[in-house]
Every structure is written in C-alpha cells, then in structure tokens.
C-alpha cells in the first residue's frame, strides 16, 4: 500500500495559497427538471457532487466520461445553465461568493467561456469581428490579426464567416478570443478537439502563456495527453462526481492515477491498450446508492454496491473517491 505524505505548509504559505485562490467550487450539484414521456416529470441528477479549486497562474484540466456533466459545469459556473435546472452548492470567485449579480458583471469580462460547440459563433458575422468585440483596448483589426498569427491562423481568415472555416480553424478562433479578452479565468471546453499534433502544441503553448500571465485556465478535455502536458492538476469526472484530483507532479514522478475509473480511461487510449471496459456510466435519472462506478469497476466489492465512498483528501489538493484507491 502506498503511504501518502501530507505537505506541511506553514501558516504563511497557507495564507498565500488562500489569497491566490481564483475559483473554489464545493459540493456543487445541478439537477434538471423536465417533462419526460407523456407529461411525466423527470429529474436528471446531472452534477451530483463536484469539487474544484483553481488559483491564479494555474491550469486545471477536467477529464471524464462523455455526458458526465462537464459542459453543464462550465455553464453553472457562468450562470448560464438551462432555465429548468437548479444549481446547489458553493462557488467562490476570488474568495467571495459568486452571486447572481456578480456573475453578470464578471461574465465575459473576468470569466470567459470557450465553448465546445462550434455553432456558438455567429454564423453571419466575420470571425475577425467576433474576436474584435472582445477586446477592451487596441480595438482594431491589426491587433486581432496579430493574435491570429500567434495561434496559427492566416490573417486573411479575419474576413471569413464561420462556415468557411475548417474544424481546426474554429478551435483556433476560440483560443484567439481568450487571448483577446482580458479575462482572469478562462474555461475552455474541448479546446484541442479535432486539431492536428502541431496545432495542439501551439494551443497548449498559448494556454501556458495565459498561465504565465497569472490567469487561471480550466481546460475541459478528452485528450488525456494534452491534459498531462499542460495542467498542474487533473480533475476526473464521472457520472456527475469528482472521483479524483491528481497533481501533475505525482504523475510526472511516474505515479499512476489512483481511481479505477481514471486508470480505465488511461488504458482505453489508443496509444495504450485501446481497452473498452463494458457498460456505461449510470444514467442521470438514477438515484445512486453505493459507488457510482461500481457497475463498471473491475475492483468492485460488495461494499462498493451498498456504501458510497467519500472524496478523501490524500495530500494538499489531491483527492480520490474510492475505498481501495492506491492499493
């Protein structure tokens, strides 16, 4: 069994970390209420229990199952979640509660979302103009074209409309938006999706530059490799729950992911085993007893089906939700 050493920060160090906190999410849940078949009401427990901390000058990656609630999490932080959903739990921005009023003020200014879906762009407006509107100063074409060059876009793309751009070009336009804005917190939903290797490296470099600028970046991604390259911490999300938060240093030292789901994710990568474990995550309509991963977990025991594992802190900011993690 592994023995995890706790970091013993001094009071001063702890305070510094606290002051540097950009966003803190605790016990977040998001439930959707909608009409199902034949006017029956259905409740979808989309996010059940999510935790995250991100500091200034830090990149945190969120990886996890498709449909586990990653995009809705981003919406919930920004306060643009569906009208028929209820968000509960605590979200603090720069150590203050993120109220509805503050959110409105911060959205688009302090906090910027880079969306997953390409149809978030205005289909009729030149893409350059769409980037330009996000700039506070330097409100001119030349500045946008400079940013385009930085992200590997031809400056002529300025005058194109979204439908004339390839999949990869749209992702680059999105990152250009992040560079153009003065947001302190950038939530990027699948920013590397559909990019070639060279473009991914360019993109990750730009994300690193944002980090250097003391900004916080939350990168939602299916690309575990990209996450490991750029992120300081990786949060793993499954069925609406944080199942693991791991520090990059741990992985760099050759440590493994601690949660069985994260490990299965790792082994499913084409460059690893391309192994597809059976079944899928529980549906959002299900109320869960026991561990959410029990149905798919190769290590599940009787206990796992009855009792719910808590999210345990194993070292400063590292957590795992499994009875047997690390064994």
């Amino acid at each position, binding site marked *: 069994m592994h023995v995890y050493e706790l970091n013993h920060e001094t009071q001063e160090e702890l305070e510094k970390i606290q002051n540097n906190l950009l966003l803190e999410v605790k016990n977040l849940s998001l439930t959707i209420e909608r009409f199902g078949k034949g006017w029956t009401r259905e409740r979808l427990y989309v996010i059940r229990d999510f935790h995250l901390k991100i500091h200034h000058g830090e990149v945190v990656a969120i990886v*996890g199952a*498709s449909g586990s609630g990653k995009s809705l999490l981003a919406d919930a932080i920004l306060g643009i979640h569906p009208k028929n959903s209820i968000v509960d739990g605590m979200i603090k921005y720069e150590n203050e509660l993120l109220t509805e009023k503050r959110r409105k003020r911060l959205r688009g200014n302090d906090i910027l979302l880079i969306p997953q879906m390409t149809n978030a762009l205005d289909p009729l407006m030149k893409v350059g103009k769409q980037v330009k509107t996000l700039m506070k100063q330097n409100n001119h074409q030349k500045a946008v074209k400079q940013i385009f060059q930085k992200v590997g876009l031809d400056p002529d793309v300025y005058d194109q409309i979204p439908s004339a751009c390839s999949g*990869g070009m749209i992702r680059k336009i999105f990152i250009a938006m992040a560079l153009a804005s003065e947001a302190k917190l950038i939530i990027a939903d*699948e920013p590397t999706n559909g990019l070639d290797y060279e473009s991914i490296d360019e993109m990750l470099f730009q994300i690193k530059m944002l980090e250097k600028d003391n900004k916080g970046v939350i990168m939602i991604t*299916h690309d575990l490799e990209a996450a490991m390259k750029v992120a300081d911490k990786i949060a793993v999300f499954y069925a609406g729950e944080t199942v693991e938060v791991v520090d990059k240093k741990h992985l760099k030292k050759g440590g493994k992911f601690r949660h069985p789901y994260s490990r299965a*994710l790792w082994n*499913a990568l084409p*460059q690893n085993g*391309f192994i*597809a474990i059976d079944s899928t995550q529980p549906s959002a309509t299900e109320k869960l007893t026991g561990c959410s991963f029990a149905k798919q977990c190769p290590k599940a025991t009787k206990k796992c089906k009855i009792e719910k594992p808590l999210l345990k802190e194993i070292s400063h900011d590292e957590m795992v939700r499994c009875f047997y993690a690390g064994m």
Partner: protein
Amino acid sequence: MTKWLGAFMLECKNIGFYYNRSNWLFRNIHLSIERGEIIGIYGKSGSGKTTLAKIMANYLSPTEGEVLVDGEKSNHSEVYPVQLIWQHPEQAINPKWKLSKIFEEAKELDQDIPSILGIKEEWLNRRAHELSGGELQRFCIARAFHPDTRYIIADEITSMFDAITQAQIWHALIRLVKERNIGVLAISHHISLLERISDRIIDFNQLKGASEKSF
C-alpha cells in the same frame, strides 16, 4: 477478376476542387476504398479533408474529376450509398427536432443500432441542445447505418468521446462494417487511433503532394 473487384469500390478519380477560383485546394486526387475495408487518413488542419469528405458523399460537386460508387456515377436515388458522418454533430442535426425524429426519418434503420451505440431511450424525447456533444454524435453515427449504406466517411467522429467510449464505439463500428461489408474512410488527427482501427493509413498531405508534382 480485378475488374470485377474494381466494381465494388468507392473511387475518387482525378478529383480537384477550389472554393475560390484563384486557389485550388487540391487537384488530381486518386483514392479508392474497397467494401469492407477501413482506410485511415490524416493531414494538417485546413488541408481539405472535410472538403474531400463532402465531395465523396455527394454534398459538394468536384470542380474536376469524378466519384464512382461501385463503378457508377452518382445517381440521384433516394438514399445515397455513401454516408457522411460529420465532424461536428451540432451542425448535422436539426436543432428543432426531437431526436426520436431522426429514427422516424430513417425508418428502415436497424433496430439494434441504437443500443449497440449506447443510445439511451430517455434521450429520444430531447432536442439537440439537451444532449452532450458525445451523446449527440452517437445519433449521427446511428443514422449513417442505413440498410442501403455501402460506404461511410467518418470525419473525426470520436474526438467528442472520452477514451473508453471511443474504444467501445470503434470496437462496435469495426464489427458492424465488417459484418455488412461497408467500406470506411476514417479521418482523424489521432494517428495511434488510426493504427488501431484501419487496414491501411494514408497521409492526406502526401496524397495532395503526389498530385502537385504531376500538375
């Protein structure tokens, strides 16, 4: 013998295309896919892969050259035998529709396909914006498996999925296309993925480059 086999192929013959008269995107593309074969193709972003995919699936006409399906030029029959699964599912599904309508549209769709692809019953009475990216993509994949489908062009179709789902879906797809003798062109930037799924891998830039020399 070769002639007979040749008839069961999706062929690009000397395809050239431009959006803008002054600028050929590519020319002299030759490519053929046999039925039951999975060809992987990768290439730089913006190099024209999606454009070629649209030409092969008859959404765009080539500026020059022709596409032959089992030896014939496209006839405008009801269901085109070459199905394109789009890179971005949100652009391929009518946002106003309930997703059940996708299956109503494709009446002859195989009963098992949705469950093979992990489509959950409860998703059917939702609209596109009420599903996650990966969930929506499954509908686009399902829709491509019409009984008349002979070829599928899969444009970066699993980059919306987590690694486990990606592996599950490709294992299922490989089984399906081999069973049904469907030829597949799989476009992806992920070379290690292509190595897992393809019988043969092509570098699109080389395909373009080879033709440039012969301009």
